[in-house]
């Protein structure tokens, strides 16, 4: 399929008419679309989706309501009509597909999607096609189930990385999409159809056998198991319907809760802030009480420095006087000894008689010391007062806890700041949740959680039913086998049909695994080839595929490389897509984001050089700031057919303009 033109009126942000031409030259098959406007890019993709399939996709792959597709500025002017037209060629034919939506006749101002009437028309080689033929045409070149690989939103790359997460909802969906492309569902349906036919044939066989003599017991048993199976299948149908309902309800609640999640969180924060504030205030009050008690002793701490100094001074005096007293004592003792010596004319130390000379010396010394003593006056009262002052001061200088006041003041101050912050937070949060029914939100959450449990319970029941079903089916198969061996039974037409349907069913059942295995090895080879071209690491030898079409990188020894950078993930994902494109379908147009977010220059260059070769037309959405127009796009230069730019005129109005390279 080769796209030619896309034009629209009042579609999403494109107020009024918008029109772009796709490059049709085989050698210049790249179209670049520049823009900061993320919405503008998604809207172009959605224009293609909507014109083909009547659907536009928003965040999280959720469908955007028809009502929300009409440009808001246009609706403010009272213009509720939107239109998208695409022209293309395929298999030698020219096509024009048109889809419109307008206000229904009796509606004055539309307020919901039902107020709009959607219509479509297709022309093939200028001849209008009947409405009933349009789907078949579209299915030939761009079936909706495979549009993932054709209308390739950059977010899809992230989704592919989900493939590595086994069992995630996303990975299941993507796996299904891949297998759809690669033909697996045909085999699954073949098996299912054969099973249905087999069941009917077995019933018919039971009826026939009952009419034949000699097979009553086998017929009865067959009938019994068939009845069991029918009953279980009925239960299963009911259980699956219930499961779907529960899941749908849950998803609806999830959507509603997502919208108000912010509110719920805000209420939680609000409650926490109020509680913390109260704690802080209570703590402050406690601290104030402690402070008041400590203030009682604060006067002592005010005097402490001065009193300490005084004490040191007095103590020094005291010590000085003490040493004076000791000195005086010494002198007195010496005087006493000398007086005795002079009088007794004997040495006080050894008791020997003193010579004349020694007596004179002793007397002289005695006189000197007696004179010295006279100068050693001591004020004992003063000495005593000093001692008692020191004692008093020691009592006054006993430690108190009043110094804790500083820490308390600091803590109280800190708490005040916290309380102010909390007050601001509380005010802001209150504004946010004012008027909202937060109890209702809590109720919805509880209900959603209940539905989750219910869903798991039903899934359990379904499994149990399936197990029982299988058991019964096995029993039935045994009976069939027995009957096959009996010539008379075998001859009945219904028996022949049972045998044939059973063979077909077995063949298809086995083919599913066969195809999956074949596909995996094919995709693995093709993805590896693409990977080698895209990766800059020469020591990577290729990729290995897992059950969910996830891929791991192999090094030159064929060992798995366990840790990959985000950039590597993107390369792997791109390789997978390219491998699938080659394995599953003919190269068709690919519309995608530049997957440059996490890639270095070398990888980007590789991708840009490689992509145009994998597809008939490549439309690349380029985000400003992500690439350097002058240098990064150099590998594409020779392949660029046209360049557009999305300009944001206002929040609700964008424009696409063609620019010269």
């Amino acid at each position, binding site marked *: 399929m080769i796209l030619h033109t896309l034009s629209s009126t009042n579609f999403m942000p494109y107020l009024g008419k918008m029109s772009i031409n796709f490059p049709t030259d085989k050698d210049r098959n790249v179209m670049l679309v520049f823009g900061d406007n993320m919405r503008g890019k998604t809207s172009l993709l959605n224009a293609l989706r909507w014109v083909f399939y009547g659907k536009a996709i928003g965040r999280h792959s959720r469908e955007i309501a028809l009502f929300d597709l009409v440009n808001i500025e246009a609706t403010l002017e009272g213009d509720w009509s939107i239109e998208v037209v695409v022209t293309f060629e395929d298999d030698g034919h020219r096509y024009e597909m048109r889809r419109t939506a307008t206000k229904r006749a009796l509606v004055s101002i539309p307020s919901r999607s039902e107020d709009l009437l959607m219509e479509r028309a297709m022309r093939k080689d200028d001849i209008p096609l009947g409405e009933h033929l349009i*789907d*078949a045409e579209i*299915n*030939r070149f761009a*079936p*909706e*189930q495979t549009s993932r690989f054709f209308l390739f939103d950059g977010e899809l790359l992230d989704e592919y990385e989900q493939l590595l997460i086994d069992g995630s909802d996303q990975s299941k969906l993507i796996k299904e999409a891949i297998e759809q*492309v*690669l*033909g*697996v*569902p*045909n*085999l699954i*349906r*073949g098996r*299912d*159809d*054969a099973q*249905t*036919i087999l069941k*009917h044939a077995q019933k018919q066989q039971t009826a026939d056998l009952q009419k034949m003599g000699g097979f009553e017991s086998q017929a009865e048993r067959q009938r019994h198991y068939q009845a069991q199976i029918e009953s279980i299948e009925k239960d299963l149908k009911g259980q699956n319907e219930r499961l779907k309902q529960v899941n749908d309800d849950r998803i609806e609640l999830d959507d509603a809760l997502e919208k108000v999640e912010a509110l719920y969180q805000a209420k939680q924060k609000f409650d926490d802030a109020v509680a913390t504030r109260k704690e802080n205030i209570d703590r402050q009050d406690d601290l104030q009480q402690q402070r008041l008690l400590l203030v009682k002793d604060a006067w002592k701490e005010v005097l402490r420095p001065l009193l300490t100094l005084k004490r040191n001074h007095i103590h020094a005096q005291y010590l000085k006087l003490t040493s004076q007293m000791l000195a005086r004592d010494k002198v007195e003792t010496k005087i006493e000894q000398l007086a005795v010596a002079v009088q007794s004319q004997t040495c006080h130390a050894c008791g020997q008689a003193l010579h004349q000379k020694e007596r004179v010396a002793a007397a002289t010394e005695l006189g000197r010391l007696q004179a010295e003593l006279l100068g050693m006056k001591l004020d004992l009262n003063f000495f005593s007062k000093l001692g008692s002052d020191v004692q008093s001061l020691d009592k006054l200088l006993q430690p108190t806890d009043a110094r804790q006041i500083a820490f308390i003041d600091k803590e109280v101050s800190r708490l005040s700041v916290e309380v102010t912050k909390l007050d601001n937070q509380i005010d802001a949060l209150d504004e946010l949740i004012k008027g909202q029914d937060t109890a209702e939100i809590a109720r919805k959450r509880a209900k959603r959680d209940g539905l989750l449990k219910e869903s798991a319970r039903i899934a359990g029941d379904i499994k149990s039913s399936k197990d029982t079903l299988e058991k019964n089916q096995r029993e039935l198969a045994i009976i069939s086998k027995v009957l096959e061996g009996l010539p008379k039974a075998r001859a009945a*037409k219904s028996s*022949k*049909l049972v045998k*044939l*349907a059973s*063979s*077909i069913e*077995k*063949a*298809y059942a*086995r*083919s599913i*695994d*066969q*195809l999956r295995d*074949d*596909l995996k090895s*094919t995709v693995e080879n093709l993805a590896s080839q693409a990977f080698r071209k895209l990766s800059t690491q020469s020591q990577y030898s290729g990729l290995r595929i897992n059950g969910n079409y996830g891929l791991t990188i192999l090094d030159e020894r064929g060992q798995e490389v366990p840790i990959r950078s985000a950039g590597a993930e993107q390369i792997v994902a791109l390789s997978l897509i390219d491998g699938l494109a080659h*394995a*599953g*379908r*003919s190269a068709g147009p690919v519309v995608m984001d530049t997957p440059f977010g996490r890639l270095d220059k070398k990888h980007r260059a590789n991708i840009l050089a490689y992509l145009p070769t994998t597809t008939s037309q490549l439309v690349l959405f380029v985000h400003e700031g992500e690439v350097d127009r002058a240098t990064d796009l150099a590998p594409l230069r020779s392949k660029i057919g046209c360049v557009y730019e999305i300009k944001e005129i206002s929040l609700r109005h964008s424009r696409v303009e063609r620019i010269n390279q």
Partner: protein
Amino acid sequence: MTDDNDMALAALLKAAADVEPALSAELLRKSFAIQRRHQFDHDDIREASMQDLKMLLDATVDVEDSK
């Protein structure tokens, strides 16, 4: 979209050769063509492929009977 269908058909023929060698390749091709024709049917007309397959199998049994 012929490539993938060929792969699916090839897988079917190979699987049948393994588990049900008595099945005719011609029958398998015809049954597969039915699936391919109906592959993008909407759910409400899902039964169409099953009806077509039943007709094919009935016809096959009838042909065998008449031999």
